[in-house]
């Protein structure tokens, strides 16, 4: 993870060329785009974990879903904030209510709503199940975000990486972008495992506490 970040950062900040139209602001892309990808990817994980919690009732799925939410919220916030910092010099505005930006803002609120709902129940298991339902309903937002740039006329540019055929971006910019995306993915996995382990230890603590209260 650290190696990926170091290589990615060096490439993004020093070795990759400035854009002929956007100048050096194009370097914001190397944090903005991976953050936005991760915002969607983490939500997909959250929804899948929620689905397996509802279908197979596996307790670990609830732990995973709950661990995903704050990470995803952070990535979504970063996508919005860095997008804003990119939008100001390039579009001349911090924010517009267009389809892409608004749908990502809704994604951010979905994360916050999931966390609030999951924590609102006395019974942790019920909270996680209610959160999972919300997460699954919110999945409808993912294709809306993905295709918002094609369906509506927006200020945001359309996809340039996942186009059929060759990406519309030169390899001198594509490579650092992909390495940064890899670094972000590793970061997600590391923090996810960290948070899940923390939750499992907490569950054991609760069980021990209950045991000692009941006199073993």
């Amino acid at each position, binding site marked *: 993870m650290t190696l990926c970040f170091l290589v990615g*950062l060096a490439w993004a900040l020093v070795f990759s060329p400035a854009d002929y139209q956007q100048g*050096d*602001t194009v*370097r914001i892309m190397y944090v*903005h785009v991976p*953050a936005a990808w991760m915002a969607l990817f983490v939500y997909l994980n959250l929804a899948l974990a929620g689905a397996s919690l509802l279908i197979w009732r596996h307790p670990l799925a609830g732990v995973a879903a709950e661990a995903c939410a704050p990470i995803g919220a952070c990535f979504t916030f970063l996508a919005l904030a860095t997008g804003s910092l990119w939008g100001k010099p390039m579009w001349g505005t911090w924010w517009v209510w267009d389809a892409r930006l608004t749908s990502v803002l809704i994604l951010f609120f979905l994360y916050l709503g999931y966390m609030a709902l999951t924590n609102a129940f006395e019974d942790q298991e019920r909270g996680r199940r209610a959160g999972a339902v919300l997460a699954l309903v919110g999945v409808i937002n993912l294709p809306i975000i993905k295709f918002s740039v094609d369906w509506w006329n927006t200020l945001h540019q359309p996809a340039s990486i996942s186009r059929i055929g060759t990406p519309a971006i030169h390899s001198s910019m594509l490579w650092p972008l992909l390495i940064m995306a890899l670094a972000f993915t590793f970061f997600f996995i590391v923090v996810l495992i*960290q948070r899940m382990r923390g939750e499992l230890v907490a569950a054991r*603590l609760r069980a*021990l506490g209950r045991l000692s209260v009941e006199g073993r």
Partner: protein
Amino acid sequence: MAEFFAMGGYAGYVWGSYLLTAIILLALFTVSQRNLRRRQRELEALRALAPHRRERRRVEKEERA
């Protein structure tokens, strides 16, 4: 060097986004790590107070040996 830091006149925007990203990701990592460590310490303390039956048996066996 100064040219590098100026980022073609967009220093605030470019460095601002990298700084913000670094702060948020580091904070998330630190909070998660600290939570895990704190709980692990609590668990260790509880275990020391009332060792698990399996562990108690192991300790007894070791003492006998």
